[in-house]
């Protein structure tokens, strides 16, 4: 180490290996001394690691940096396969961590599988995995070198031991940074460092905490909790979702959609259900839900207004009318929305419909839905009411021409002329392809409401479509 004086500044030239393993790099520190006596005995002056030089304000040092390097004690360590127990000679390596991953002391880096036993191999110290010396699944014996670890001498930020290295611009665990910043006179935070690797940033994070704790003279009130952390978090979009969304959007671009909202008086259905649900369960071993009513009502309506059951063939510019009604029932699964189809609903009764829906539900639950279960459909019913939504605009399921969204049931006093009587209303939103259904628009809702099960309460003055 060379010393030189320039004026009242002390210049230190320190040759050492830097983080990139290049020898001969020189750290240049300008240290302006006002009180040399303060140096040695000052507890505030500490090389926690070489990236940080913490200075106690009372010793009146100010420090400016030109370059920083890491201090290395024993930097790279090779970890060998542990000895096997009970006369086992070899095992297979299964890596848990990859090259470049930061690990804490005792964190599992790999497992060795020997004869039905899984032995964990922990990291002997905190650091970064520099190299894996055996491929995944490779065979090793006791003592075979396994991996190289570059020690850092400080634990990685506790908050995210397994996450990807945070971008250098992201704030440190804010609790650490904030009190440090609050303690104004102490330059405990570094000027922004070039984004070379996460490791110095991590050690930066935790070493800010330790020394900052000692010299902080700020009143306790200024100790700032981690509110206001403004970091970002990027998650790659699921490929499947991307493609489905793309497809749907393409299809929608050809559709001119209009939505019509209506209310349906559900009192009759509720009464019917209350009356029949027990005998129904006994006879058919199935629960009598609302879907069978909706599906059957829709079937009637579609037969009454066949244009809504039809579809436009863009290639031949024809309208294709179907004399069967296949209703797609939208079901949300963890994988995304799936719409299995109940076929030939026009010939089914309530029990048949409930049975079909139940079977499809079972298949979906067991992950057994086949593609042909989901293919086709001339009309879709989506039950948004289970989520409590009051109104909504479901999106038409291409290539169909219409979709019916059923929403929550709520109480509404109908006006019967003299005094209000309580009724239950359920607003369906019918979204129609207006290229087809422009004429049907005025007839569709009453066709649905007027069909067998959804009769309006007597005297109720409902909204006109």
């Amino acid at each position, binding site marked *: 180490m060379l010393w030189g004086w320039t004026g009242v500044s002390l210049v230190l030239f320190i040759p050492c290996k830097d983080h990139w393993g290049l020898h001969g790099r020189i750290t240049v520190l300008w240290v302006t001394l006002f009180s040399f006596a303060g140096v040695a005995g000052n507890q505030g002056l500490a090389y926690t690691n070489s990236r940080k030089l913490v200075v106690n304000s009372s010793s009146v040092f100010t420090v400016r940096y030109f370059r920083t390097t890491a201090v290395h004690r024993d930097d790279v360590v090779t970890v060998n396969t542990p000895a096997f127990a009970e006369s086992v000679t070899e095992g297979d390596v299964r890596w848990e961590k990859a090259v470049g991953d930061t690990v804490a002391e005792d964190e599992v880096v790999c497992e060795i599988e020997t*004869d039905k036993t899984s032995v964990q191999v922990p990291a002997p110290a905190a650091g970064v995995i520099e190299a894996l010396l055996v491929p995944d699944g490779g065979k090793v014996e006791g003592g075979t070198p396994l991996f190289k670890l570059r020690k850092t001498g400080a634990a990685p930020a506790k908050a995210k031991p397994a996450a990807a290295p945070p971008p250098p611009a992201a704030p440190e665990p804010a609790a650490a940074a904030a009190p440090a910043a609050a303690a104004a006179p102490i330059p405990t935070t570094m000027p922004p460092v070039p984004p070379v690797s996460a490791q110095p940033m991590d050690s930066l994070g935790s070493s800010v905490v330790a020394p900052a704790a000692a010299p902080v003279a700020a009143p306790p009130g200024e100790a700032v909790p981690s509110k206001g952390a403004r970091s970002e978090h990027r998650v790659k979009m699921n490929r499947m979702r991307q493609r489905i969304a793309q497809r749907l959007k393409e299809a929608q671009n050809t559709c001119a959609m209009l939505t019509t909202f209506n209310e349906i008086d559900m009192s009759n259905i509720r009464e019917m259900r209350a009356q029949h649900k027990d005998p129904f369960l006994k006879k058919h071993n199935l629960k009598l839900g609302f879907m069978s009513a909706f599906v059957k009502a829709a079937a009637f309506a579609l037969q009454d207004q066949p244009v809504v059951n039809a579809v436009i063939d863009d290639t031949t510019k024809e309208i294709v009318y179907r004399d069967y009604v296949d209703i797609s029932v939208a079901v949300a699964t963890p994988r995304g929305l799936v719409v299995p189809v109940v076929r030939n609903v026009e010939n089914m009764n309530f029990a048949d419909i409930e049975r079909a829906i139940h079977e499809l539900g079972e298949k979906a639950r067991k992950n057994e839905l086949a593609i042909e279960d989901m293919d086709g459909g001339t009309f879709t019913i989506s039950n948004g009411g289970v989520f409590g939504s009051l109104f909504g605009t479901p999106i038409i399921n291409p290539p169909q021409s219409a979709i019916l969204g059923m929403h929550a049931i709520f109480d509404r006093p109908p006006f019967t002329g003299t005094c209000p009587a309580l009724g239950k209303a359920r607003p369906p939103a019918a979204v129609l392809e207006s290229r087809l259904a422009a004429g049907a628009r005025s007839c569709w809702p009453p066709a649905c409401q007027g069909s067998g099960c959804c009769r309006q309460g007597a005297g109720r003055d409902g909204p006109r479509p």
Partner: protein
Amino acid sequence: MALPWALRSCLQRPCVLRSRRAPLGGAAGAGLILQSLSDDVYQNLAVEDWIHEQASLENRQVLFLWRNAPAVVVGRHQNPWQECDLGLLRQKGIKLARRRSGGGAVYHDLGNINLTFFTSRKRYERMDNLELVVRALRALSPRLDVRVTDRYDIVLGGRYKISGTAAKLGRTAAYHHCTLLCGADKSLLSAVLKSPYQGLRSNATASVPSAVRNLLEEDPALTCERLLEAVAEEYAARHHVDRHVTLINPADEAVLPGIHRKTKELQTWEWVYGKTPKFSVSTYFDLTYEDSVLQVKVDMEVKHGKIEVCNIDVPEQWLPPGLCQELAKSLTGSRFCPDEVTVLASAWLRTCPRDDELRHKWNLLCENVRMLM
């Protein structure tokens, strides 16, 4: 529930891995016998993890007795597609779990009992544990021809396997668990543990199939309940432990703090399927379409359960150009899971032109691809 002092103190966790706290007092050889109230495989595996990580085992041992409703349990580094018939599992509603110890795939049902011996790493001794089980069996049925092999299996009559073993060695603690077939459904066992998937290449740990037999077939007195009792007795005698069996509810967060999180983690797709070592699928299937049979070649590489590379080769002109690539591209990046194919395929169907023949071909192709998973 009111816990005996012994359980509470035994299950107290050391604060930090390197705690210098003195090990909990008590004579060397002190221990505990626990039995699970649940037959849910995930909950029971979570209890194993919990005890392994949280209990202080320096001077004590724990025996954990458990049984599961029908489930297949694969070893930590195995490939479920190579080990069992996933389609059959789904159809029968049999759960699939991945344990944290090594070894091969096993089928559990209520006719099979599981024994886990928890000790400190120093006291880890599999042969000792298995000899203990054999002694318990002989106590119930003195003329039973059972012995321990050098592969740590227990065999009946010299040729039928009635118990398989697996173990996990941590830094300071270890456990050894084994199964014991009392009255399991053997035909279902062999059907389920036979993989129908062709063309899989991987370096995952392979199972070694063996002929099995139930103890009940040999001696009707060897029911699960009696076996559990006998093993507990023998364990208590061997390790000078109170022979009282403590029942434990794996859903009780108060007794086992953190157990819900462990249970949930064991149920995630990322754990059960995603932890499969990298493998490749190189196979073909025959499509029968209108009196002609076409061969379709499929090549995929799967890492962390996700398809990284996908190639589907269909004879020319059978499908419009680019459609196969379309399917292959959609599959790349998706999970190697039939659900994903179903959703992708049906999404495409909703947007494709109204060509019944094309739709039919597409369905056929996708359905076959789905069956590879």
